[in-house]
């Protein structure tokens, strides 16, 4: 009997209150030693002096749906700058009555992106679906078929332009980068040196200079009367630039591959393309997911550099809004809004990449 009760006792004994639960957490993480206690107090003080004023500015003293006159007399944020100019910020100079078209195109794009997340759907049919979606999006943006008024691409701007440049820029840069990386590993000296020269050349110049070249230098070489669309030129510059960086990251993954994998593939009689496609690239690309996502994210943000060749991307339309005398001086609000849009996109990318990494993990 006694034994029994003793056993029960030991099995129900709990660790002391001070080492578990909220108190335990605070002790082990915030106050485990004098130095850390000091740091904790310092950080708490900094938060105390910075957060409440920001909250007051952003939420308490702020106005949301007023006109610009009302904003002149308040201390808080004038969020009204956003709803009042939302359509320009988002769509730029796209004709006012037709803005449902880029909106619909963006919705299709977002739906397609979400739909493509699931790896089970990565089949040939998905590729066809993307083809159809691209045609529809292109028609919506450009018009020119019966029922849709044509809209010059010089009028495209804002978020649709940013998404266009980044989604297609990144989606095309990735395969080009892979090809460059494979080329750099090639045993054929001509291909190898071409790829090395390309990669080093592109990585050696800033994106801005590439964009300048595409808009200023490149047209000089075209025969008279031939023009290439400005957006397309920027798009190509972005693809060329990003691809060089992707190539180096992918090369890192290829070099990380065990030699035995090549040998096993060879011993089975697989040819070069089968070996790369089925054995090497699936593993190498998985290894380099984190660094490639870093590059994709930074390339996404770099699309905002197209302002320097007079394309009105999301950042530029926001800036233009702020040069309107009525709304001058509310740049903090507007830039926070744009930053949020960029953040949501980047957060989505990094989140998705983490999920992909987990799904592809085949160790225990």
């Amino acid at each position: 009997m006694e034994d029994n009760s003793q056993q029960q006792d030991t099995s129900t004994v709990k660790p002391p209150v001070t080492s578990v639960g909220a108190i335990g957490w605070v002790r082990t993480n915030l106050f485990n030693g004098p130095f850390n206690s000091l740091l904790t107090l310092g950080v708490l003080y900094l938060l105390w002096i910075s957060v409440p004023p920001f909250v007051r500015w952003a939420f308490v003293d702020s106005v949301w749906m007023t006109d610009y006159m009302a904003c002149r007399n308040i201390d808080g944020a004038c969020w009204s700058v956003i709803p009042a100019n939302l359509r320009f910020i988002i769509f730029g100079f796209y004709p006012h009555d037709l803005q449902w078209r880029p909106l619909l195109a963006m919705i299709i794009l977002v739906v397609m992106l979400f739909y493509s997340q699931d790896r089970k759907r990565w089949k040939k049919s998905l590729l066809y679906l993307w083809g159809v979606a691209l045609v529809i999006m292109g028609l919506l943006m450009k018009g020119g078929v019966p029922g849709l008024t044509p809209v010059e691409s010089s009028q495209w701007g804002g978020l649709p332009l940013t998404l266009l440049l980044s989604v297609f820029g990144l989606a095309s840069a990735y395969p080009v980068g892979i090809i460059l990386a494979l080329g750099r590993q090639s045993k054929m000296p001509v291909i190898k040196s071409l790829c090395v020269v390309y990669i080093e050349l592109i990585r050696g110049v800033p994106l801005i200079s590439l964009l300048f070249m595409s808009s200023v230098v490149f047209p000089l070489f075209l025969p008279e009367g031939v023009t290439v669309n400005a957006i397309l030129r920027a798009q190509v510059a972005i693809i060329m630039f990003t691809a060089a960086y992707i190539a180096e990251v992918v090369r890192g993954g290829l070099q990380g591959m065990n030699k035995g994998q090549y040998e096993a593939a060879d011993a089975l009689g697989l040819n070069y393309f089968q070996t790369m496609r089925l054995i090497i690239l699936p593993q190498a690309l998985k290894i380099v997911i984190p660094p490639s996502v870093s590059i994709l994210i930074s390339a996404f943000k770099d699309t905002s550099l197209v302002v320097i060749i007079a394309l009105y991307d999301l950042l530029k339309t926001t800036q233009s809004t702020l040069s309107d005398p009525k709304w001058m001086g509310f740049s903090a609000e507007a830039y926070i809004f744009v930053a949020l849009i960029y953040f949501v996109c980047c957060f989505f990318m990094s989140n998705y990449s983490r999920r992909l990494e987990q799904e592809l993990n085949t160790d225990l």
Partner: protein
Amino acid sequence: MNENTQTANIEVEQNSDIIQITDMHKWYGDFHVLKNITLQVKKQERIVICGPSGSGKSTLIRCINRLEEHQKGKIVVDGIELTNDLKNIEKIRAEVGMVFQHFNLFPHLTILDNLTLGPIWVRKTPRAEAEDTAMYYLEKVRIAEQAKKYPGQLSGGQQQRVAIARSLCMKPNVMLFDEPTSALDPEMVKEVLDVMISLANDGMTMIVVSHEMGFARSVAHRVLFMDYGEIVEGNTPQAFFDNPQHDRTKLFLSQILD
């Protein structure tokens, strides 16, 4: 007339010798790894190659499926001469199975996909058929219940058995084993050797680089001893172990058997 006799000769040779290596040399840069290798392997013959490390035994069998290139001499496998012709190399590789010291399974594919990859992409076998074959060989190496797992989830011995099954799925005429048990924990050596013995009993032509002398004694038709890139001597297991001819062989055997 002359041509006819020649083709006739080749046919006879094909019937008897599945691998013919004549006066083969290989260098790594200036280093002469394989010297004047001449070796005939008959169909269904089982050869074990032993020798100190660095003696060129692995390099020799890796030359047979062109994982290494030889610079001089002639290698003919199953009637096809190994040259730089990629088509021939791929043809030979499909006929010659290879098992590696470190298994080299494809870690991103399930066991089943590891086995069906070769047949589907090289032999163009329909998937369903390839999977049936794969399951048959997985049964044979007694590991069928692991088909849906990934290599990283298996023990070393299990992985090596999968690697053997993967080679067998290509229905090879010859199997090369490059120190198949050297990377295994001791308790797993037997399960792999058992699979190899049952393979031998089925009449597979095998060339095994190994230090498993018990295996060599019981399974091999011929045991070769290599040192400094040469085949020093080759004999039936009994003669080889009980009555070695060369001093180097004697020294090696005394070191390995004690």
